């Protein structure tokens, strides 16, 4: 019967489609899980290098949205220039270094991710092979919220180092 074959053919087609779909979902699920596991093992960090001057005026447009820079003590610098933004991917329990314009190196370590989704990070800022400025500090940070280390001299101004982790 023509009608019977047609129904049988449709069923086979439908079964194959469902099988392929289930297989696809399974593969996608495994991929998502793997990506989530990878994400849990790493953190994205951003180091922002700013040069503040007590003379002159003007703030780099990229810095305008950072509320903390508008308040004391950073409002003591009417001129603030964005020198560099460095994006890093750091494994939990690992470190990466960023070279600062004054010759020192910033070492950023992501120590752990806490239950609230934030991070415990540590940073040090020193000349290579020395402990001349900041031996180490540990910060607990909510995802994406910045903290700052400031005070280094550079080109007649003051370096402001912003760090955020998400």
């Amino acid at each position, binding site marked *: 019967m023509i009608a019977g074959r047609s129904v049988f053919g449709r069923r086979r087609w439908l079964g194959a489609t469902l099988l392929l779909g289930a297989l696809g979902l399974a593969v996608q699920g495994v991929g998502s899980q793997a990506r989530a596991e990878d994400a849990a093992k790493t953190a994205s960090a951003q180091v922002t290098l700013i040069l503040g001057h007590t003379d002159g005026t003007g703030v780099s447009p990229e810095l305008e949205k950072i509320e*903390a820079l508008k308040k004391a003590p950073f409002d*003591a610098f009417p001129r603030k220039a964005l020198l560099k933004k460095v994006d890093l991917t750091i494994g939990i329990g690992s470190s990466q270094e960023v070279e600062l314009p004054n*010759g020192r190196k910033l070492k950023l370590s992501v120590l752990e991710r806490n239950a609230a989704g934030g991070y415990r990070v540590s940073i040090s800022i020193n000349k290579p092979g020395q402990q001349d400025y*900041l031996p180490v*500090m540990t910060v607990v940070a909510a995802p994406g919220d910045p903290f700052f280390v400031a005070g280094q001299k550079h080109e007649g101004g003051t370096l402001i180092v912003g760090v955020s982790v998400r």
Partner: protein
Amino acid sequence: MSTELDDETLQRFYDGDLSPVEERVVQARIEREPAAQRRLQELERLSAWIQVSADEVGAGLDSDAMFAAIERQIAADEKANPGRGLRVVAGAWASSQRRVLWPLVAVAAAAAVAMLTLSSGPGDEAARNAPKREKTRVAAHTQEAPARPRVHGTRVERVDFGNSTGTVFEIDSEGVATAVVWIADDEEETP
């Protein structure tokens, strides 16, 4: 916060010896920390008492009469022992005055410390919080502001300044704390 504002920095802040930026850093720190506010107020109170005591001691001294008495004593000694060659040398009057003044200043300072200790009891809360300088007034004002719950932000857990001098504080933006560490950079910049 894990680190206290050290006495030297607080003293330099009080004396106005910090750079404008450092002063803002310390001022922001004082605004946030009741302990630092209390220490600054104690410093101000102690300084005020010592100043008042020194003024009172100075006002009570008749330096002309004292100098005249010294001269009379020298003349009498010279008359009694002409061979000793006693003479007034430069600084002798000041030295005599210092000898008289130091015990008085010491007593006045001790009295000031005693008064300070007595006046910092629980019944003197209003006086303790009464600002004497603009810096303290700002701090007291901030202290009165209601604390808002923090849902985000960053917090310094521990910091090792090594040989550097640093200050840790927080900037508050609508309930979100931003941790700031300010470290003085004493070394010349590497070319």
